[in-house]
């Protein structure tokens, strides 16, 4: 099986974030890491390859610094990497990101494309789905498990409230992978050493520019929400208070 894994570099989860000067995004000088669901997507791809043979290719779209996620993936066992390298990929909308990926892999023949379920920074959960549409392939989201089946694959999707759905689908297909479905491996020293010599193809923005349209996403303003405190005393009998309280918890605070 030949599998492409789309991986994104995102700000580290525990990194303290500061707004940039124009207040439209965070400052560049934070630490970055691999988007969490993408790490599980890579792990799943490596496991599929270990079971069925084939090739694992990783791709990212981002500035020079994002090459780090590719090197990490190569060190963990991916065979080669593609880097759509340009700062313009930061903050690009999902459809154009997907178009860029599609253009960059137009000469390749993959059986499967994995993306993470969503990114930890923008959180669209769309890139994979749109990519499938652009390629004319079927897709399934929130994938927990993948088994090879006659003429295709059988996947397990996570639904709500503890329900799962099993879907049989033909190949090629796009799957968006849920976090936590397997145990991530560490890069071994030998893997790290070998990663240096694995092929990494760079694709400039200009090479895929024709496939793109103007960025539909514009962040007007980003701000840190003000902490506020609000005290309200509920009046009435115990029963009435309980009723009001559940209502508030359900509709205002939305924790029920």
């Amino acid at each position, binding site marked *: 099986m030949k599998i492409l894994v789309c991986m994104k570099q995102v700000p580290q989860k*525990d990194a*303290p974030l500061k707004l940039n000067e124009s207040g439209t995004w965070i400052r560049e*000088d934070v630490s970055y890491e691999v988007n969490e669901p993408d790490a599980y997507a890579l792990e799943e791809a490596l496991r599929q390859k270990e079971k069925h043979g084939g090739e694992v290719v990783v791709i990212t779209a981002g500035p020079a610094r994002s*090459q*780090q996620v590719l*090197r*990490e993936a190569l*060190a963990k066992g991916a065979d080669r990497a593609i880097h759509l390298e340009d700062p313009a990929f930061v903050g690009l909308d999902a459809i154009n990101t997907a178009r860029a990926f599609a253009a960059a892999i137009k000469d390749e023949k993959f059986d499967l494309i994995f993306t993470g379920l969503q990114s930890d920074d923008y959180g669209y959960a769309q890139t994979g789905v749109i990519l499938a549409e652009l390629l004319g392939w079927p897709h399934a989201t929130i994938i927990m498990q993948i088994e090879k089946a006659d003429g295709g694959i059988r996947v397990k999707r996570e639904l709500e409230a503890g329900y799962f759905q099993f879907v049989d689908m033909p190949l090629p297909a796009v799957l968006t992978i849920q976090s936590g479905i397997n145990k991530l491996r*560490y*890069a*071994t*020293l*030998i*893997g*790290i*050493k070998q*990663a*240096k010599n694995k092929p990494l193809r760079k694709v400039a923005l200009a090479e895929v520019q024709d496939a793109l349209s103007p960025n539909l996403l514009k962040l007007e303003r980003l701000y840190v929400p003000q902490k506020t405190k609000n005290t309200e005393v509920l009046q009435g009998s115990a029963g009435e208070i309980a009723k009001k309280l559940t209502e508030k918890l359900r509709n205002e605070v939305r924790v029920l």
Partner: protein
Amino acid sequence: MATTTAAPKAKIPGGSFLLQERPTSEVFTPEDFDEQHRLIAQTADDFATNEVLPVADRLEHKDWALTRELLKKTADLGLTSVDIPEEYGGAEMDKVSSCILADHMAKYAGFAVSWGGHTGIGTLPIVFFGTEAQKKKYLPRLANGEMIGAYALSEASAGSDALNCRARAQLSPDGKHYVLNGEKMWITNAGFADLFTVFAKVDGEKFTAFLVERTFPGFAIGAEEHKMGIRGSSTCPLILNDCHVPVENLLGEIGKGHVIAFNILNIGRYKLGAMCVGGARTSLDNAISYAKQRKAFGKSIAEFGLIQEKLADMATEIFVGESIVYRTVGMMDVALGEVDKAGANALGEVRKAIEEYAVECSVLKVWGSEMLDHVVDEMVQIYGGYGFVEEYPAERAYRDARVNRIFEGTNEINRLIITGWLLKRAMTGQLPLLPAIKKLMDEVLAGPSLGDGLEGPLAAERTLVANAKKLALFAAGAASQKYMQALVDQQEIMGALADMIMEVYAMESAVLRAQKMLERNGEAASGLAVAMAQVYLAHGMEKIEAAGRKVIAAIAEGDMLRTQMAILRRLGKHEPVNTVALRRQIANRVIESGKYVTA
């Protein structure tokens, strides 16, 4: 080795930091790590955090089966074989990688010592001194974690003075075995190791190393020591009672065991320095989280100046520790890069390239272990009453740190090595120390001179370092003039000179690193590093001046004393920086980040 364009290329003589100013391009810093280095750090960080820390309590209770299991896991990841050649199943990487591993594995000391003992003193004697057959037989199994190694040099009555050991070896009448008798003491990993490098005297005279398997007849392990710290590591005596060791397990040459002992300890020292830095970083990160959430007087204690001062000092010391560790191994890698690996005496050359930096290695050991002790002491203080009880991490960190000043050569022995080695190099002309001292003496006697101030970035700081070097040279010159060769018997002066030398190396490495960051990233991105270098310089200069006064007061009197003190004062003159403000700046940054950062 993977080199980046910014990484240094030219080989630098060991100990020369005392004499020359280096351009930043010749100094390796953590900012020069390449992709491979960062990935290694990440694997080690993740492993220590996810696999080791969660089971630390079980390891503290000496669950050696678990230790073996974890060691096997490290082996599966290649973390046991960074220094083992590829042909014997190793990953064979540069020394920077090797130090990064030691640094980032050192989050829980008990396991770090087991792992470090195995990969360092347990494995390296064979890497450097083994015959082809010994390497083929043992290295692949040490690399893959099937066998665990240990190193048995010390004895109950011979620790620092290990060459004076009592264990003996006698060739058996049939010439097939050496028969070893004696006892070894404090042997790390002994409780579960399979292979021991044991030192004994052939015929009671010739100090020699042997590779002894646990299963050899006549070999036994004594009871576990009840230790103050690193309780998660095994430390036991060995009992050799007519222990039969096949002749092919003699390591190196008969009577040349000291070469093995010295070289292996030397390597152990730089790694120990790296581990101390890693341990200190973990302690600081814990202390920051604690200080942020602990409330007193209606505030988080991280808001108090006296707590901020501690956090700032801890961060600064870690910054300096990283600077000296990676500068040193960076120099080693350059020197090792010049060794012809296919040459007839390649291994000898490799050893020489490492030995070249014996002074720096001892500095890392002494400075690193004392830095760590200071960091964990402040950590306990920040935790207040909770710092004194076992439920919180400070208490264990405090106990665990202490042994670093004792093993791998006590800090006293290493101080003597630092000064003694440099003096020896000076005497033999390998290092032009004497001309430098003479030039300095002429210069100071000529009276105050104007304008040898340096220019460029961090000029004031670099000038201060240049003066610190002069102070050290001046004290060393005055002391050797007075005592000549007999200086080695004046241990207190040797020690004070070692303190000056260490501080020079630490101060200069910190400034060069900050300067390199400044040159590369500009002022805004290097403000924290510059602040840490400045805070450290103030501290280092105080130590150097105090040590200088101690030396001069001990060797001169009357007019001579007054003249020399005047020279000391002149050389040490500098405008004080506002360390209160600088420390607040440093503290605020690490508190805001929630962990140690350098930018």
